[in-house]
């Protein structure tokens, strides 16, 4: 049986751990609110952008002059997987679940005989992928100094992707990130960004014929790279919100576990203390009887 002093120390250390996890949970909650706000603020832009792009794409899409970003290179031999993860750990299964679907996709593509290249954003995803796919990692975008994700960050990621595309490094690009559904549920998601796909708006307002200035092809060529950046931006914001959500629930769990542990240890401590007292009493009584 551990002695009383050890137990006391143990209880104290769990108590301070609980304080830390509690603080982290509160910090995550505050950051989550901010992350959600930015994701909310970015939504109108992304929605309108997609609507216009869908319209443009449907009018230019089929012609031969369609830009490669839209129509693809014609092949699908080389795939670029852009894995967006967090810079920090201690957020439950957040990073692992993104890495898991990315790994599954990579394994599947490799089994089909395709070439796989991986671009990582965020330190944690890179660390996990390096174990199994170190030969496939082609680049990394470091966002560890970024406190609040801005459009410029998304642009730098997009630039990284686009320069590789222009150099003919890959045919298809997909991003992996976690979609924010609620604090307790984040959905790891895979989305194709090159060749670009746009969800056509449900209400079919395509009947409006727009005048394009300059013409469709030129606008499309101008807007497609921005579309990529916008999609990455949305993904980054979703990811940021998911990360904080995941951290919040992980820390909530940890706090609760620490509480349970303190209760258990306290009971054990009290029992041992009583056992010691009882022992002492028995010794005294039997000592007195012996006289």
């Amino acid at each position: 049986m551990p002695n009383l002093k050890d137990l006391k120390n143990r209880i104290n250390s769990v108590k301070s751990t609980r304080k830390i996890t509690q603080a982290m949970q509160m910090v995550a909650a505050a950051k989550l609110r901010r992350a959600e706000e930015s994701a909310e603020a970015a939504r109108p832009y992304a929605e309108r952008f997609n609507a216009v792009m869908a319209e443009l794409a449907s009018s230019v899409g089929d012609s031969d002059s369609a830009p490669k970003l839209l129509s693809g290179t014609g092949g699908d031999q080389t795939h670029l997987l852009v894995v967006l993860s967090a810079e920090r750990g201690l957020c439950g299964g957040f990073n692992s679940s993104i890495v898991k679907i990315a790994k599954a996709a990579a394994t599947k593509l490799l089994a089909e005989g395709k070439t796989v290249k991986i671009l990582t954003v965020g330190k944690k995803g890179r660390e996990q992928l390096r174990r199994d796919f170190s030969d496939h990692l082609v680049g990394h975008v470091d966002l560890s100094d970024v406190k609040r994700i801005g459009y410029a960050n998304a642009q730098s990621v997009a630039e990284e992707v686009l320069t590789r595309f222009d150099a003919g490094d890959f045919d298809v690009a997909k991003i992996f990130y976690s979609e924010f559904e609620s604090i307790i549920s984040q959905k790891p998601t895979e989305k194709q960004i090159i060749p670009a796909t746009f969800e056509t708006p449900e209400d079919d307002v395509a009947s409006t014929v727009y005048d394009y200035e300059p013409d469709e092809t030129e606008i499309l060529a101008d807007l497609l790279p921005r579309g990529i950046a916008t999609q990455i931006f949305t993904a980054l914001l979703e990811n940021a919100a998911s990360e904080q959500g995941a951290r919040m629930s992980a820390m909530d769990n940890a706090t609760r576990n620490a509480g349970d542990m303190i209760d258990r240890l306290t009971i054990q401590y009290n029992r041992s203390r009583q056992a010691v007292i009882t022992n002492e009493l028995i010794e005294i009584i039997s000592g007195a009887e012996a006289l």
Partner: protein
Amino acid sequence: MADTMQFDLVSPERRLVSGLARAVQIPGADGDMVAMPDHAPAVTTLRPGVLSVEMDGATQEFVVTGGFAQISPEGTSVLAEEALPKSEVTADFIDERLTKAQAAHEAAEGDAVDTAAKRVSDLQALKDAL
């Protein structure tokens, strides 16, 4: 004819203006244009420049660095890459983008040279106008 139309100015990070406007002057890639209610549907890309909105009897001015505008008879939405109220724009802000554009111009090849040159001159014009 309706007197006002719905106008939205959004950047990727936030919505700057949303409301009823009488007229919007847009720095289009091929020249300035003014959108008023019942304008024919049009989509245009933007060059770096000043966008001015006439709403509630006052004129508000914004600096945009690129993006595009979607005009329909009912309203106009401007999706700017970066947009700031004119009063908040500093010379450093423009200079930073100008330096970047100049670097891109020097690095550009083929068709991209003209596009890059245009961006440099647009930014220069914007800088002079402020």
